């Protein structure tokens, strides 16, 4: 089962050098344990563009779809057998990147 771990941030600017070192070490561990599927850091919300192509013309809007004080600054996708394993990975991830994270399962069997 796969879980999305979103990194929640309220300050602009990317991770510090110390945080990057900790994140790299954590990624290496998660990869070695076979949990790591994908991860990435996102640029600032101000770089976002919202696209709406539901109607007759394609609309582009500058900025994020939600203006909020907190935003998703990056994410991991982990493969884990159950929520307890995913929570443990998320807790280690939170420590490594020094930010709060949110865990959400992908639709899977039985969901």
């Amino acid at each position, binding site marked *: 089962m796969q879980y999305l771990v979103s990194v929640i941030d309220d300050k602009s600017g990317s991770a510090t050098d110390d945080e990057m070192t900790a994140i790299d070490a954590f990624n290496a561990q998660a990869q070695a344990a076979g949990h790591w599927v994908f991860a990435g850091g996102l640029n600032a919300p101000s770089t976002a563009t919202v696209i709406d192509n539901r109607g007759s013309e394609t609309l582009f809007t500058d900025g994020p779809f939600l203006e909020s004080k907190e935003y998703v600054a990056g994410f991991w996708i982990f493969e884990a057998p*159950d929520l307890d394993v995913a929570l443990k990975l998320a807790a280690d991830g939170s420590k490594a990147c020094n930010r709060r994270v949110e865990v959400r399962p992908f639709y899977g069997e039985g969901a």
Partner: protein
Amino acid sequence: MTDVHAATTRAHREQWARVVAALTRRFGDLDIAEEAAAEAFATAVERWPVDGVPPNPGAWLTTTANRKAIDRIRRESKRDDKQREARMLQDDDPPEPTGAIDDDRLRLIFTCCHPALALEARVALTLRLVGGLTVAEIARAFLVRETAMEQRITRAKAKIKATRIPYRVPAAEDLPLRVSGVLATLYLVFNEGYLATGSGSDPVREELTDEAIRLTRLIRALLPRDGEVTGLLALMLLTDARRTARISADGELVALAEQDRGGWDRALIAEGHHLVRERLATGEAPGRYQILAAINAVHTDARDVRDTDWSQVVALYDQLIRLDPSPIVALNRAIAVAELDGPDVALAVVDRLDGALANYHAYHATRADLLRRLGRSSLARAAYDRAIELAGNTAETAYLTRRRDQLNRTL
């Protein structure tokens, strides 16, 4: 007939959690387990008066519930789906060596009290799936509509399924934290029963206090060496022992100092003291429930309030504050300080908590009492007013109102 009724009630009390837990393990689905268990008990209510009580009610109920579950799975012809789900929830690994008995009920309790669930969802799930209360009973106990409670339970079960909360006893390293989540849930159930909120409700809801004690006893039977489990059970017993003396005939809260100690339940006190001594004998550092139990042991040790060993109470609160430096603990400690060092010393402590506890009824009630004892009546009256405004328990409101009105007469 009454024998059959008693046997059915006893079977429900003793077997419900076992049946739900065993079915959850077998079918890997809380919904199926809950429904099949409910159907099996309904069948027992119907059949036992006619056929007689089976020699082994637990086995009869489990077999019947199993059959009901299989019937339901066939009926819904979702057999493949359900088996797939079963693999999902099921955990066939033996639990880590925790010193715990491998009892399915323990898995059930840990699943219901998982930290990813909100505390109110844990309470509802635990009372339904482990305690066997009906949704209507739980809704009534927490003063919410039955549909709202049903939804709360359904959502919690859906989260367990969608996020794959495992059905297992946590690993040894996670056990202390997870047990504390279970105990917090049970303590909330107990407190809601002991100091029930809601203006239209009984001041004490025995169905909740009794259920909390029963479930804590169950957890103690399953985790006998866990000090905090024993501590919480002792705390509940020593608190519950004072239940009848705590509310007067006309429904008013009776303060600890004014309670008729002859009305305390000596058997519960003896059991609580025994548990506290058992923990002391281990020489292990106590956790918060054990310290709270010890404080209650000191109170229940005194045949007269004047015999209370207040220095011991304050020393225990000092110990508790080191573990839990919260303003509420500081407030309770101040109440003991008032007895040891005088209300003026206590008031100075209490006044420093104003920022954190300004909306907490007990803060104002404590302040009011200290001000009253110091003869500062107009300040006391204002504090009583605020406490009455914030208090949610009918017996407590009655007590505070009388105290305030006594002040009025003296002015």
